[in-house]
């Protein structure tokens, strides 16, 4: 595997009301990796991802994605937020949400075309949701909602996937679908960065690891980074069986 750095974070500090949530962090995400970000509650995992994506203000530091500022390469980044961050009672269908993935390429004012609709349908098919395309999103289960989000990322044709706890509260079947999707994406040269909360499946699902607790504890390939000492330092020691 190549060792190119696809996401480079330098000296990143982020804060809520002058109270730092992330301290002076350097993160390197390896191209074509499946990288997990772990850390205890309040460690700043979501904040880090939002900082990288430019969704929250940073106090210091900078972020480069594919060697460029994030704003320049936004089309190539798909973000899958925590499932509860959107209003699932919104009057729309599964297919329509997936179609939103195409908006990235449309820009202002232009409407989705037939080609975009086809891409959205294909994306739903890839994660086994084609039968639910006209279902209103409020009637989808937790796992199905997460799959709709994944399909939206597929429809976007992105190179990098950022996912915020995609496996939280989903059924076993959906978990498998999502992990298969990550592995398949990797074989197509794509990179995924996933906030994960289950230490038991960590080594099985991912090949790179970032351990965070306001500061970066350690990062690198899974075998060398997933150690008892590192976990203890991140206050995660008790979690490991």
């Amino acid at each position, binding site marked *: 595997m190549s060792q190119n750095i696809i996401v480079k974070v330098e000296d990143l500090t982020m804060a*809520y*009301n002058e109270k730092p949530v992330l301290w002076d962090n350097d993160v390197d995400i390896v191209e074509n990796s499946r990288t997990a970000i772990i850390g205890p509650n309040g460690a700043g995992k979501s904040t880090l991802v*939002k900082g990288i*994506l*430019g*969704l929250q203000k940073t106090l210091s530091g900078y972020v480069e994605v594919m060697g460029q500022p994030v704003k320049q390469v*936004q*089309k190539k*980044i798909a*973000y899958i*937020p925590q499932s509860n*961050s*959107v*209003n699932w009672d*919104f*009057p*729309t*269908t599964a297919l329509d*949400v997936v179609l*939103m993935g195409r*908006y*990235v390429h*449309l*820009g*202002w*004012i232009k*409407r*989705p075309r037939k080609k975009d609709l086809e891409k959205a349908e294909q994306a739903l098919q890839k994660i086994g949701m084609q039968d639910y395309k006209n279902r*209103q999103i409020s009637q989808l289960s937790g796992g199905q909602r997460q799959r709709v989000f994944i399909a*939206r990322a597929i429809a976007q044709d992105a190179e990098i996937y950022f996912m915020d706890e995609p496996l939280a509260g989903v059924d076993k079947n959906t978990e498998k679908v999502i992990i298969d999707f990550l592995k398949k994406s990797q074989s197509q040269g794509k990179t995924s960065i996933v906030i994960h909360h289950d230490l038991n499946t960590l080594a099985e699902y991912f090949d790179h690891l970032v351990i965070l607790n306001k500061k970066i504890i350690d990062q690198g390939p899974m075998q060398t980074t997933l150690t008892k000492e590192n976990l203890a330092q991140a206050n995660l020691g008790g979690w490991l069986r």
Partner: protein
Amino acid sequence: MFSQILLFKISDILDYNQQMLITLLITGIACAILGCFLVLRKLSMITDALAHSILLGIVLAFLITKDLNSPILFIGAGLFGIFTVFSIELLSSTRLVKSDDAVGIIFPLFFSLAVILISTFARNVHLDIDIVLMGQVIMIPLNNIEILGIIIPKAMFYMLLMLVANTLLISIFFKELKISTFDPEFATIAGFSSSLLFYALMTLSSFTAVSAFDAVGAILVIALFIGPAASAYLLTKDLKMMLLVSILFSVANTFIGFFLAMKINVSISGMIAAITGATLLLTVLFNKDGIITAIYLRHKNKKEFRHDLLIMHLGNHQTEPDAELELGFDTIKDHLHWDQDAIERRTTRLIDQGLVFRDQTRKIYRLTEKGQLRYNMIKIDYGM
């Protein structure tokens, strides 16, 4: 001389009542379509704040221009509405107060300032508090302006302008408004600035509220923004459909409210607001997930379930040796623990449906062929 000939008066083709009704309809539709996005973004309270605070904008602009009909009044008050929203956002972004509380602090402050200013400096002007709250629908046909050779009621003109502006915003930026309402973070990453769209929406809400202020007052404006949209939200699965249904609600509310108010001679805007509340209440009660519907369905399901249960009992026992006891005309009630009345009622119903018959030789209830099919289906339905 020349312009005299070209002059066209709205009052030549519409009588007073028609002018009022049409202005109210336009106002309702202009508010309802924006209202859909306000409801989906949970901005009802901000709209409330906005509708009240623009009074301060109107008063301040009036103190500068000394003219209630000046366009500067319209622009000043509209901008002040945006300033209100901005103040609320700013206050809640400090995280020292919650967003709800920020609304509760800013809008009474601005509204009461306006009331103080009116009572101090503008006592003799027609800016009364009751007019501020309820408007003066009756005055709509009396206050005319000339635009491009057309003499048109001022309120009608401004509302038409806002209807066009709102329709344009929503049809041109439909996709952007949808995505930033559903998933603001994704919208930002996709390159559609959520705060830009938010302020665009708020700007139009503010100017719409200002335009409607004279005619219908602060209370009805909120009812017109929120009521039809909230009703449509309960009934539709699709954003375009929601917009359409909210327009239908708005038109119906306005028609009913207007004619009812005329008939019993009460405040027109008050009556429309009341009807808006009533139709929303009815929608809450009777929509497919509504309270009454739920009670009705629960009752119906219970009834259906008892009938299914009876069929199951007959199906399970009619081929068994103890059928005479389990299914006997007089003994079945002891086995199901139902009273004889319930047995009679339910068996009669099932006999009427051709699912059950009375086997007079064995003195038991039995399933017909149709009943047997139903029995098999029930077993599948309940996973047995």
